[in-house]
């Protein structure tokens, strides 16, 4: 099993969610993050003084998946989150040793 962690542009979340649903993902978790990367931050003005703000608002998605699904899921995120412009973000695939469904105590694949 894997945990797929993606950092994406916030306004792409709906698209990514729809696309993940369509490949059969039944659950995912989302959080608000700020990202620093190649995409230039923006300038903010405060009291006439300008400041470079390095961090941009981004969205993090964590999806637990069975090994068999990894390619599909990564592909789905890739396609639906892409705008082609800088700052689209990254997807990382992390190994997972076990998963438990709290409600039932099911483990591994069955927990998904």
């Amino acid at each position: 099993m894997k945990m797929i962690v993606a950092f994406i542009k916030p306004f792409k979340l709906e698209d990514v969610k729809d696309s993940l649903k369509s490949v059969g993902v039944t659950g995912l978790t989302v959080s608000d993050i700020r990202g620093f990367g190649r995409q230039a931050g923006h300038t903010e003005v405060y009291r006439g003084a300008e400041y470079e703000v390095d961090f941009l608002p981004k969205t993090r998605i964590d999806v637990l998946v069975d090994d068999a699904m990894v390619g599909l899921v990564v592909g789905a995120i890739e396609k639906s989150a892409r705008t082609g412009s800088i700052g689209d973000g990254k997807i990382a695939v992390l190994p997972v040793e076990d998963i438990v469904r709290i409600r039932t105590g099911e483990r591994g694949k069955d927990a998904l």
Partner: protein
Amino acid sequence: MDISAGDTTWVIVSTALVLFMTPGLALFYGGMVRSKSVLNMLMMNFFTISIVTIIWVAVGFSFAFGKDAAGGFIGNLDFAGLKNIVGDKALPNAATIPASVFVAFQLMFAIITPALITGAIAERMKFTAWVVFCALWSLIVYNLVAHWAFAPDGWIVKSGARDFAGGLVVHINAGVAALALVLVLGPRKGFGREPFRPHSLPLTLLGTGILWFGWFGFNAGSALAANGLAGTAFITTHIAASLAALGWTAAEWMKTGKPTTLGAASGAVAGLVAITPCAGFVGPMAAIVIGLVAGVLCFLAVSLKFKLGYDDSLDVVGVHLVGGIAGSLMLGIFAQNSINPAGLLDGEKQIEGLIYGGAEFFKDQFIAVLAVLAFSFAVSFLLAKVIDAVIGLRATEEQEHSGLDISLHEERAYALSEVA
């Protein structure tokens, strides 16, 4: 008549109350937009204060309340630059208060009217385009319509129709202009698909509280004196707001099973809008009906935008246009001469609503509504088209995605995290 310290105080206080409505409106609207464009919404409203003030001082007051220059259509330039308004002198149509107080009171109406429009164009209009639109609209739409219906020699007043505190001049005028503007501007990306949920309903409820509070100055202040008429306008205003909140919430409770705070807030505003033209011409019982009708009607009206496909973001059309028309016509139904004998300026026509036999008066109201609708829509549409052609009305797609706060104002509304 002499200046009355009591009347003067009441109108000065009312002026302050109406000014306070504009920040109130800004918060009311600001709470309803997404957090990435709330500052733009606040900014459009605060800036409107500045823009309209300078125009009003220069020529606006004179266009609206100067001696009629042409067929009840526009005032002359006698008061340009606010000449001759300082001191203890009164103007004839507000005989017990200093002229400067009347000028300031009416200025606050001139400010809030274009400010109302900003709710329709939320989250996508160029700030510069708003500045230009607001200035021109104030100059050639608001000032003229104010002259027609508020100045004693305006053609609407002379026709026999009435607008106690701004059903025609403020609400229909702003509402139909909002419609014209969004037709040119187009909908937000995602309109009809995404909910665009309000980012802070407590802010919206705070705004509602301020609006309700300030509206007492708006309506009861329009009596221009501290007397029984002001008292009547005050209590009818309050009753209509309360009942409209009830009406709206009850309607949605029936339809969706849940009463919402946004419904209660919107309903209250709808009631305040509808009672505005009526406040000093009707009694408490009529106010109940006007409030209930406004609440239910506007609740039904706000879903129209999804059916008809125009993105009136925060329902300026559904609330102000529909509520303003409803109020102005219900004035034609419920007005009672006995409640406001001084409302009668020329001794010719009675201000009696349809149910008291005043078919003529109802017709006059109807014509006045149509006239304001047509004029304001046409000029607003034209203005929008011209500005769009010259400098462009709309922010870029990229700016809309990032939010107008950061892209147009280089600011963020909130920094609640402890880190940058």
